[in-house]
């Protein structure tokens, strides 16, 4: 197991380097220098000041030197300072937003599992039934529905028409005056719509995947054997079949990380949630280069970690992986 972990970590090194190289290239593809925007707006900036700034950020050096210097700073987790007026370190800014995005994504993953797995089992054990067909329709609509549109519709329905749920932010304006129980309830209410929205796309994919896995497993000889020796259908399905059908789901969860993080841009800007997605969006809109570069690298590294976790869990539940 440790050997497997070590091997997995080694393969991550070239990927990490590739991630930094692509992030760097993307930013430097842009016409003009990163300092232009910050300085051009200020009439007091002379040519000398501009050159001084460029020297300060190392922009006067050749690209490969700039990349190497940036890498060296990344190695000690120095992502530079934001171009925003607060000028704070990018790592701090991202660090305070990340827990919010991760919490919402973990909650939506839990929701996806809780709904999609039973749904997938139920349609696989009754293929072509009315229930199965209804699920298929739901899956296709789920794939096709633009999440931001669904968010708008739910906002109109639950926020404006029924007035059941808040539609913006993480807490109400009177949060500080609430008791501890009401504060918790307030937070839950604010999370319902964002979690639902971010889970929706994955829900369709996961239930379809679960259905396919279950159908595949049920055809195997060991399921026939289990039935033949007189086990109850419930035991066959939920013990023998389900365990095997669940394994690939772990990988899919790992693979869904980039989609969830990318999707956070959309639901966080719609619901005004101060998470990583919103920060990245604001950074992009204000051309805050250090923040955008940091966001790209950290977003990709999170994916890498998600995949690593998925692979490790897989190796734990399926011993064949470790031996290979």
């Amino acid at each position: 197991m440790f050997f497997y972990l070590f091997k997995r970590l080694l393969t991550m090194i070239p990927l990490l380097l590739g991630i930094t190289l692509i992030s760097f290239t993307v930013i430097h593809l842009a016409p003009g220098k990163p300092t232009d925007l910050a300085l051009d707006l200020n009439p007091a900036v002379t040519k000398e000041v501009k050159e001084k700034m460029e020297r300060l950020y190392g922009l006067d050096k050749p690209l490969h030197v700039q990349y190497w210097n940036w890498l060296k700073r990344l190695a000690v987790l120095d992502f530079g300072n934001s171009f925003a007026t607060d000028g704070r370190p990018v790592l701090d800014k991202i660090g305070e937003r990340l827990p919010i995005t991760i919490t919402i994504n973990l909650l939506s993953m839990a929701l996806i599992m809780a709904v999609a797995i039973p749904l997938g089992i139920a349609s696989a054990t009754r293929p072509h039934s009315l229930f199965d067909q209804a699920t298929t329709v739901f899956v296709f609509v789920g794939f096709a529905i633009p999440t931001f549109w669904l968010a708008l519709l739910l906002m109109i329905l639950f926020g404006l028409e029924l007035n059941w749920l808040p539609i913006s932010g993480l807490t109400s304006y009177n949060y500080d005056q609430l008791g501890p129980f009401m504060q918790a309830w307030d937070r839950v209410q604010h999370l319902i719509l964002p979690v639902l929205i971010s889970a929706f796309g994955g829900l369709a994919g996961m239930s379809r995947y679960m259905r396919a896995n279950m159908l595949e497993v049920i055809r195997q000889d060991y399921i026939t054997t289990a039935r033949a020796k007189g086990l109850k259908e419930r035991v066959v399905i939920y013990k023998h079949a389900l365990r095997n059908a669940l394994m690939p789901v772990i990988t899919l969860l790992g693979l869904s990380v980039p989609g969830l993080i990318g999707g956070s841009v959309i639901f966080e800007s719609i619901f005004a949630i101060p998470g990583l997605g919103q920060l990245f969006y604001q950074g992009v809109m204000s051309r805050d280069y250090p923040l955008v570069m940091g966001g790209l690298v950290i977003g990709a590294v999170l994916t890498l970690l998600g995949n690593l976790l998925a692979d490790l869990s897989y190796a734990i539940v399926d011993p064949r992986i470790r031996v290979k």
Partner: protein
Amino acid sequence: MPSGTLAQETWRRFKTNKLAMAGAVVVLFLFVISILAPLVSPHDPNQFHLKRVLESPSWDHLLGTDELGRDVLARMIYGAQISLKVGFVAVGIATLIGIVLGALAGYYSGWVDAVIMRLVDIMLCFPAFFLILAVIALLEPSIWNIMIVIGLTSWMGVARLVRAEFMGLKNREFVSAARVLGASDYRIIFRHLMPNAMAPVLVSATLGVAGAILTESALSFLGIGVQPPTPSWGNILTAGKDNIEVAWWLSVFPGLAILVTVLAYNLLGEGLREALDPRLRE
């Protein structure tokens, strides 16, 4: 066993699939609407009417008017043109890159394969939406940049597909035969191997159009996609969000259009997949 060309057989299987046919009809309908936009559009999509702002649907304006008094139906018809253009050009770029890289990796194996597949792994690590946002905001948000960026960030699936097909085929007899006859690598790749890999690529491209349309609409909704006054389903929805309390029609209709279009491409793609590979039928 009925005989005929591959295309005829595929079509015979395809047309028995009602859902896929429905998808094909919707896609065809959108093509016609887009091409005939100036003829079928009831109004000029950019004509302001400041006295008729945010009117609810009526006989004159079937889907109502927007915040500048422009006809929503007309803007949606022209928006269909944009969706179609973005979908096809973006997928064209992605498919081209994916085919070339996948073919090289699958045919040559060794270090070529290793480098290309690592590039695929790296690209898959990035939350695609982050990468797209960054590039578009640093360049100019224009329709061409959107197409290029969506294309550049969505070729990895095709590359993997083509590589897998090539790996499975390149040691078969017909390839050895071609090589013995003196065919160049170029000829073997494009004349002998590629036609065999086209079926899954076609399916993935069809599904890719759906994905590209969704991405474009999300970008336009966030204000970094197609820029007003050019109409797109996504940027009409932005106005819908701003006027969410007074004008439901601005939110409902463009979203429905996206939903139906994406659904149609997905059904068409799934139908093609089954028709091209009868083994998949349950």
